[in-house]
């Protein structure tokens, strides 16, 4: 269903504006747009920076899932394993040895990438439901290790006492969350640029090839598994950085960061925004967490029901996710301009 919607909208866009180069240029706009939207939110909602910081860090995590799922076609419900590993690695490093925020992000990214590389090499020979179960298993193992290693991770009490140094030695993490948000936004924007570079590189295209038709990639002499493992590790770095970013900005890491619900929630946000689009991850996270926040603060007791209704609505009316809305809209406009072509798509 998702695939069908996507293909339809793609052809719609291409049909309306034939030169593909124009589409490529349009893609770049997204990154400054995210930055501008983030800065606008910074000025417009100065009291909600805690939420906005969490959105930015979560968007980075969902972005890592998009790399895996949207570009590699790897079905996973264990992406939080990498996020949790990154968060704990950064947290442990911060409590014991280093306090520079950028160094902590590097530690988190490295840890996330390593665990993804190791587990990816072990499990990526599987497909479909088997793979899905293996990813869940990896997530649970990571969570259980975090629970058992109480001396390092604090177990179920959480790892507290993370006190990062000021960013660049100048901007300390303040009560209002200004530094935390701008820091998180900057990291997200840089990550988007890197991710975009990766998915458009020959490597990224090869991964997409594996997703579409692994047999053909092997026939061309490529190794589908090694592409996928590499992609899984790269996405692990992103997830690890996201985990570290959360650890740095919130000052605490809990067992939930490696838990199954977090993987599943990320998947919901990604599907909501639209897979295989990068910006879909950002849009989905912002919309989901924003609506979650609005509903939960207006009615802390029954908000879950409304979230459910909203998700059902999106799946019914925008099966390709919110990010596909733009494509559908332009398809709709061109269809209105040329009424003759409308019937075929409904």
């Amino acid at each position, binding site marked *: 269903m998702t695939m069908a919607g996507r293909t339809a909208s793609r052809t719609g866009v291409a049909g309306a504006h034939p030169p593909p180069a124009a589409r490529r240029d349009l893609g770049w706009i997204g990154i400054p747009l995210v930055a501008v939207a983030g800065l606008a939110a910074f000025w417009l909602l100065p*009291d*909600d*920076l*805690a*939420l906005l*910081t*969490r959105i930015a860090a979560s968007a980075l995590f969902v972005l890592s899932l998009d790399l895996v799922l949207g570009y590699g076609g790897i079905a996973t419900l264990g992406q939080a394993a990498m996020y949790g590993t990154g968060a704990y690695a950064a947290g442990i490093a911060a409590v014991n040895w280093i306090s520079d925020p950028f160094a902590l992000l590097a530690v988190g990214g490295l840890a996330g990438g390593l665990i993804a590389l190791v587990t990816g090499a072990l499990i990526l020979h599987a497909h479909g439901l088997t793979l899905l179960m293996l990813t869940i298993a990896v997530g649970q193992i990571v969570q259980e290790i975090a*629970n*058992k290693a*109480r*001396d390092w991770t*604090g*177990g*179920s*009490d*959480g790892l*507290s*006492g993370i*006190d990062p140094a000021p960013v660049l030695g100048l901007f300390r993490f*303040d*009560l*209002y*969350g200004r530094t935390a948000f701008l820091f998180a936004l900057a990291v997200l924007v840089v990550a988007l640029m890197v991710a975009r570079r990766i998915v458009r590189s020959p490597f990224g295209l090869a991964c997409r090839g594996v997703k579409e038709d692994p047999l053909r990639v092997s026939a061309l002499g490529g190794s589908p598994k090694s592409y996928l493992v590499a992609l899984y590790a790269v996405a692990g770095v992103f997830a690890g950085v996201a985990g570290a970013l*959360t650890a740095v900005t*919130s*000052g*605490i*890491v*809990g*067992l*939930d*960061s490696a838990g199954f*619900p977090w993987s599943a929630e990320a998947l919901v946000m990604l599907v909501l925004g639209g897979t295989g689009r990068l910006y879909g991850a950002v849009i989905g996270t912002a919309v989901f967490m924003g*609506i979650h926040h*609005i*509903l*939960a*603060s*207006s009615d*802390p*007791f*029954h*908000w*879950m029901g409304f979230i459910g209704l*909203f998700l059902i*609505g999106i799946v019914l*009316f925008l099966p390709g996710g919110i990010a596909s809305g733009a494509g559908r809209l332009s398809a*709709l406009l061109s*269809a209105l301009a040329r009424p003759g072509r*409308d019937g075929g798509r*409904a």
Partner: protein
Amino acid sequence: MTSTLRTALLGTAFGLLMAAAGPLLGPLAGPAAAATIKVGVVAPFSGPFALVGKTFKEAIEVYQAQHGDKVGDDTVVFIYKDLDQANPAQSKALSQELIVKEKVGYLAGYYFTPDALAVAPLIDEANIPCVIFNAATSAITEKSPRYVRTSFTLWQNTVPLAEHMAKQGIRKVVSAVSDYGPGIDGETAFKTTFEKNGGTVVDTIRMPLKSTDFAPFMQRIRDSGAEAIYAFLPAGPTTLAFAKAFADNGLKDAGIKFFGPGDLTQEPDLPTLGDAALGITTSFNYSRAHDSALNKTFLAKHKEMFGSTDSVTFSSVGAYDGVHVIYQMIKNTGGKSDGAKAVDSVKGMSWESPRGPLTIDPQSRHVTQTIYLRTVEKVDGKLENVEKVAFEKQPDYGYKVGK
């Protein structure tokens, strides 16, 4: 045609969302009235632990119904934030929002330890007191001088229990706990105290947190030749399965005694535990069946307001007494916002609560209270924790013991 319909529907949905967002933007517009003191309550109000939030909210409302919502000229308003599971990053974000956006003067609630720990840097920077209604790991109050706790700790419940068991002449005990922070705390507290009093812990069993099949553990307990067990599991389905396995595998009939902290037999769980719970002896800070005039008034008011007292349990009094402490802090500081001063002003404070006499220990800022030894019995056809022995003035034995 369908496309137009879709657009229309989407438009409607968007409009509704904007309408929903409206009330949220409302509070931004007007400045807070001078004589309103806001208290932010972070707790689970939805999801599997929603019952906890419900007990908090009901207890707060009962307290306000009994004592009014005014302290001097100031009106006290509670703002609730839902944190459906242990999620410290979210806990910090919500608390930060309460401080920055809602401008609360006090933070309260917190069911899980990591959620409470997450706010330490916030309350220190904003100089706001944080009254913990539940989170029970001893180490929390060491992390900031602005924490006050009105619940209990595992050490506080376990030490008198272990001493009592040793006094009863029990010599060989097995401890069986869930393999997570509080469980291990309970095991350590029990082993240390029990062995100091001349007993032997013949086996320490740590069970997976989510396990519901306890038959192998029951065999291990039986083989160990212990006279009694000390058990701690998180309340809910696991405890239920454990108590049932204990009865079904014949350990109960073999005369092995069942002891544990009172989380195991909290009041809302008793009906589901059923007769399997009969005879379980626990130590805890509150039983709904506590015989005192104050408790009776509390229960009567609760019944009047909410129709039943089925949900009343330890978390209810945790919140009820927490609100009392907040009221006192507001009174003592004359409504001025100064967290450190407010906390100082309640150090050593003593009062009578529905659960019995309470004192805030000046050092640990945790309540020193009477711990009761209770046995599950049928009272008028309803299962209750009937109090047998009272151990007076029990402090938090776990304070500064280290992890």
